[in-house]
């Protein structure tokens, strides 16, 4: 019960921002969230999808009825007849059949016009900004890393080594934590002590690590204990995920296959709660339509299969997926039938616990900031909503401030 009362008071804060904290705490106390149905719960799962390279928002959620759109994109604009219409103004890129289906199921929220003040157009810096939730000053730890550090203070180990994972070779900045460990798993088979066919070497390594003495040197003790975790981690991962069967057919592309692995990590006793996957490159400076449409097809079809799989395992209400990209792209097409680095863009939040719909309004194509879209929703509002209403923690100390939440949970 303690946790529930914390969750309730935390809910109030993000709804109204810092000042109203005291006044409204009493009102909200009356309505505890429903467990398991989109309510904040630290056992909920968050999947973060990075669309790397800077995804063009205008050709993702297309303002097809806006003449200005077709004027600035004579070659790469998507005709009204082709879009998958959401309403009489906007529609999906035709490659997003999968997301259109999830939208029809009420599982997809579209948050429009997301950005932040003084946007950065460098891939590296903008990615750092999104992943550390720190536009003004470099931050050492990622926003998910800081969430994990708060949830598991020093000394409180997560229940699973795979509590948070990056499904890729490298750890993204978002998952860099001060003391919670986050493995990067490029492929199931690649994670583990690889002695080739020399079984005796592999087992001897186990003998050496299991028998390593703690000693007085703190680093030697830490390394020996990490070596044991690392050595056994691969076998544990394979045995724990072996019992799980994917119950949907995933497309063959690498991103969809990462989602199939994500389902295994979440649905098996590996028990992953935070999963980071990546798809790219959306850096479409030239020949945009072919490249972006192909990737959006992977994105939508992969996520449709992922949620079919999760639903078949009774997990679709426990798993929320959110997308992000380091920036949107310029409003006007360039001379190579592509677009250059821009600013605001839409992002997607998906899941059985998500209130499907359209949040925020489509940015104006005529009221621009030096040729770029103006943002309306700060990306930290999305993070605050997810941390508070989905994962059940106070986002203020994690994000370094209060941000109004968005109503998709």
């Amino acid at each position, binding site marked *: 019960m303690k946790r529930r009362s914390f969750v309730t008071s935390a809910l109030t804060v993000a709804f109204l921002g810092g000042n109203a904290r005291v006044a409204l705490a009493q009102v909200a106390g009356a309505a505890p969230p429903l467990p398991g149905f989109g309510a904040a719960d630290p056992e909920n799962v968050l999947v973060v999808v990075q669309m790397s390279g800077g995804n063009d928002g205008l050709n993702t959620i297309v303002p097809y009825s806006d003449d200005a759109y077709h004027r600035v994109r004579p070659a790469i604009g998507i005709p009204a007849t082709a879009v998958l219409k959401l309403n009489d103004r906007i529609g999906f890129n035709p490659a997003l059949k999968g997301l259109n289906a999830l939208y029809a199921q009420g599982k997809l929220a579209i948050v429009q016009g997301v950005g932040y003040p003084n946007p950065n157009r460098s891939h590296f810096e903008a990615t750092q900004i999104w992943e550390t939730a720190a536009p003004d000053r470099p931050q050492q730890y990622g926003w998910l890393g800081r969430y994990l550090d708060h949830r598991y203070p020093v000394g409180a180990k997560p229940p699973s080594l795979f509590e948070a994972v990056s499904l890729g070779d490298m750890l993204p*900045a978002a998952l860099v934590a001060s003391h919670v460990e986050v493995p990067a798993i490029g*492929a199931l088979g690649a994670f583990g002590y690889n*002695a080739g066919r020399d*079984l005796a070497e592999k087992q001897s390594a186990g003998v050496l690590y299991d028998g390593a003495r703690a000693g007085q*040197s703190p680093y*030697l003790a830490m*390394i020996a204990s990490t070596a044991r975790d690392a050595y056994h981690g691969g076998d544990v991962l394979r045995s724990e995920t072996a019992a799980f069967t994917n119950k949907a057919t995933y497309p063959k592309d*690498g991103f969809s296959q990462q989602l199939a692995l994500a389902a295994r990590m979440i649905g098996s006793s590996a028990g992953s709660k935070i999963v980071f996957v990546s798809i790219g490159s959306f850096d479409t400076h030239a020949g945009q339509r072919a490249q972006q449409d192909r990737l959006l097809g992977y994105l939508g079809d992969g996520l449709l299969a992922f949620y079919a799989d999760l639903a078949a395992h009774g997990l679709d209400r426990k798993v929320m997926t959110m997308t992000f990209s380091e920036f949107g792209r310029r409003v006007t097409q360039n001379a190579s039938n592509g677009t250059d680095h821009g600013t605001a863009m839409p992002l997607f939040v998906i899941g059985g616990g998500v209130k499907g719909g359209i949040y925020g309004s489509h940015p104006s194509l005529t009221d621009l900031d030096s040729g770029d879209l103006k943002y309306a929703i700060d990306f930290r509002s999305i993070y605050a909503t997810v941390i508070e209403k989905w994962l059940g923690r106070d986002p203020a100390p994690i994000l370094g401030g209060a941000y109004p939440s968005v109503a998709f949970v």
Partner: protein
Amino acid sequence: MVPKIDTSTDPQVGYRPAGTLDADALQPYTGAFGVRHAAHLLRRAGFGGSPDDIARFASVSMESAVAALLHPSTPDVPLTDFPGQSALFDPKRSRATAQLWWLDRMLRTNRPLVEKMTLFWHGHFATSIQKVPVQYMVGQIDLFRNQGLGRFPALLGAVTRDPAMLIWLDNRYNAKAHPNENYAREVMELFALGLGNYTEDDVKEAARALTGWTLDRNGAALFVPARHDDGIKTVLGRTGNFGADDIVATIVSQPVHQRFIAHKLLEFFVYSDPEPELIEQAARVYALSGFDVAKTVGAILRSNVFYSSRAYRALPKSPIELAIGTLRCLGVAAIPPNLPYQLARMGQEPLNPPSVKGWDGGPTWINTSTLLARFNFVNGLVAQTAPGKNGQPAVSAPNADPDALVGRVGMDPVKVAAALVSGVVQDDVTSAVRATLIAYLENTTPSVSVQSPLPFGPENYQEKIRGALALTLNLPVNQLA
């Protein structure tokens, strides 16, 4: 009296906890100087070495060993000669060529301390190829190589005008009409003073003094007087019509700067939590030397505390130290082509630090993923393959020849195990570790059931010595510098 390195077979026995610093910690060490001391010196002031390298250093006095590192008398290997591609090789061609060029220097140089200081300054002035084009990154590494052991104020002045830094921290856009505070802030926070030792006003005023620097058409640093704010500024208590040189001079004249640099050098060379008194002592050495990096580092490398048991095997190796140290130990002649990728998996891709703060280092190098990446780097190297990306097929790697370590001892498993633990970790193992290696060589590991086990002999010699070598290189103690 500083306790000397314990020379029993268990390196943990002599470990001394923090907080008991001796008064003569930075006085020259006068005790014995043997193989362990020489290996320790080479790991910290370089990238380790083969048993022969270590023996050569152990055969001279500590003073001579340190002097050879600080003042190398032999010319270095030619810079343009990259194994296998000497004529075509241009480090400025791509990210990969620049990384391989520098890693190759670390592997083959006979001036390891120069490359080690270059790596130190790369982490200190952490500039990334993610934002800075490759030719400027190479230029900055050369700057660290040429000036990294000189006087710090000169180095900081050069870094302030370095094109890579002008790009990295945006000072090329810093002009009177539109000041940019990025470099002004980091030069105080990260490069010379530390957080809390300056005010926001100091940042704003220093930014004004740093206006005017930009890049010319050829990418060289250029001072444009019209872009410079030549009004009166007040920075850190001093007032005047300051420019970049005045800012450097003002910053390094802050007493806290001496402790800031002393602390960073001690963390890098000695141990990760130096006592305040030790920092004070090193700061005094640094100040008395006239901010001379070589003299300060030299004093550290000759000191009692450097050869104390508290410092011995007290720092987790960085991935670059581990990788280059392994290649040097095994006498590998060339850098494996995918080493930059493998270093990224271990958490330290050269020329690509994670942020302007550089790598955290110390215990943060070690987690399950990065440790597996280290183990599998070694496993692949010893098996002459290197893992592909995302579980892709392995690629071939340069030959690591274990015969160099064990070729002289024949087919005796006890002697092979002894040669390995001596050559790789200078006997810093327990008897249980030796027993496990011998059991592996003899195919008698208790938990392993092998059909018709072969005795150690010519039929399985290559496989077994490679396996035992990988096991030794992957010992927890070998992760410590």
